[in-house]
C-alpha cells in the first residue's frame, strides 16, 4: 500500500525572506507571495463557496487582509497556513451570507454513524478516470464533492488536495485533531461511495468484448 505524500508548496526560507521584506514595506515581495499562492487560495475559495464571484472576492479580500495584518504574522506557522486560515474564514462568511444557512459551521456536531460506513463495496476498473474525457471527469468530480457538507468538503480539500498536514488543517479551521480526522474519514468514504457509481467495474454482457 503506497503512502500518500503531502506537498509543501515553495521554498520555506525563501518564503520567509519574502514575508520579512513585505513587512518592511516591499510591495513587490508581497506580489511574489500573491503569485505563489493565488491559485491555491482561488481553488479553496471556490470549493467552499461553490460560487465563482464569491471565490474572486475571497481571493482579493484574503490577500488584502493578509497584507494589512502582516505585522501580526509571527512566523510560528507557515505563511501559507496563515493565509489559508484567512481565506477559509472569508469563504465561510460568504457561504453563510449567500445561503443564510446557520448549519454552515466547522464545529457542528457530526458524531453520528451516518456516512462513516462504506455502502458500495464493488471494486473499480483499473485507471477508472481514463474512461472519461477530462471535461467529463471534472464534472463528475465537481458534482461529487459539491454533494458533501461544507465542513467535510473543506477538511478534504485542505488535507488531501492542498496537502496541509492534519495539525495545520486543525489549526486553520479551529478544530481539534480528532475532529479533523473524523471529518476527513467521512469525507473520503463518502466521496469514494459516490465515485463508485462512475468507476466500478461493469460486468460484461454476453457478446461484449473485454477491453
Amino acid at each position, binding site marked *: *500500500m*503506497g*503512502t*500518500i505524500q503531502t506537498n509543501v508548496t515553495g521554498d520555506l526560507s525563501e518564503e520567509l525572506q519574502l514575508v520579512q521584506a513585505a513587512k518592511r*514595506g516591499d*510591495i513587490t515581495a*508581497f*506580489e511574489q507571495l*500573491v*503569485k505563489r499562492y*493565488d*491559485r491555491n487560495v*482561488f*481553488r479553496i475559495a*471556490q*470549493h467552499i463557496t461553490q460560487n465563482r464571484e464569491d*471565490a*474572486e472576492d475571497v*481571493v*482579493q479580500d484574503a*490577500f*488584502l487582509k493578509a*497584507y*494589512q495584518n502582516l505585522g501580526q504574522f509571527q512566523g510560528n506557522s507557515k505563511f501559507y497556513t496563515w493565509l489559508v486560515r484567512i481565506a477559509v474564514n472569508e469563504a465561510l462568511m460568504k457561504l453563510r451570507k449567500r445561503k443564510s444557512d446557520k448549519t454552515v459551521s466547522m464545529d457542528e456536531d457530526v458524531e453520528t454513524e451516518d456516512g*462513516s*460506513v*462504506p455502502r458500495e*463495496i*464493488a*471494486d*473499480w476498473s483499473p485507471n*477508472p*478516470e481514463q474512461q472519461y474525457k*477530462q471535461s467529463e*471527469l*471534472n464534472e463528475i*468530480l*465537481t458534482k461529487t*464533492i459539491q454533494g458533501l457538507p461544507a465542513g467535510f468538503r473543506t477538511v*478534504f480539500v485542505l488535507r*488531501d*488536495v492542498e496537502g496541509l498536514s*492534519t495539525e495545520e488543517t486543525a489549526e486553520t479551521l479551529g478544530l481539534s485533531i480528532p475532529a479533523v*480526522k473524523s471529518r*476527513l*474519514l467521512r469525507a*473520503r*468514504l463518502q*466521496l*469514494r461511495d459516490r*465515485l*463508485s457509481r462512475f*468507476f466500478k467495474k461493469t460486468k460484461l454482457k454476453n457478446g461484449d468484448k473485454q477491453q
Partner: protein
Amino acid sequence: MKCTDFLSELNDFLDGSLDPKLKAELKEHLVWCHNCYVVCNTTEKTIEIYRENKLYELPDALRTKLHQAIMSKCTKVKQNPTK
C-alpha cells in the same frame, strides 16, 4: 481484527502515520478481507484522483485581473494606512 477496527485506522494507514506493528496487523487483515481491501484501494484512488485532477484552475485572464485588483488595493493601503 474486525472490519470496523480496520476502518477506524484507515486514515492513518493511508497517510502512512501508523506504528509498524499496527500497520502489519492491518496489512494482515487486508490479505483475507476482500471488502476492506476494496474499500482501502478505492479510497486511496479517490484521494489520488482529486489530487491529480485539481478542480477550479485559475484562468490566466482572471488571474491577471485579480492580481491587478489586489496590488492596487494594497498600494492604496500602503499610501494611506489609516483608511
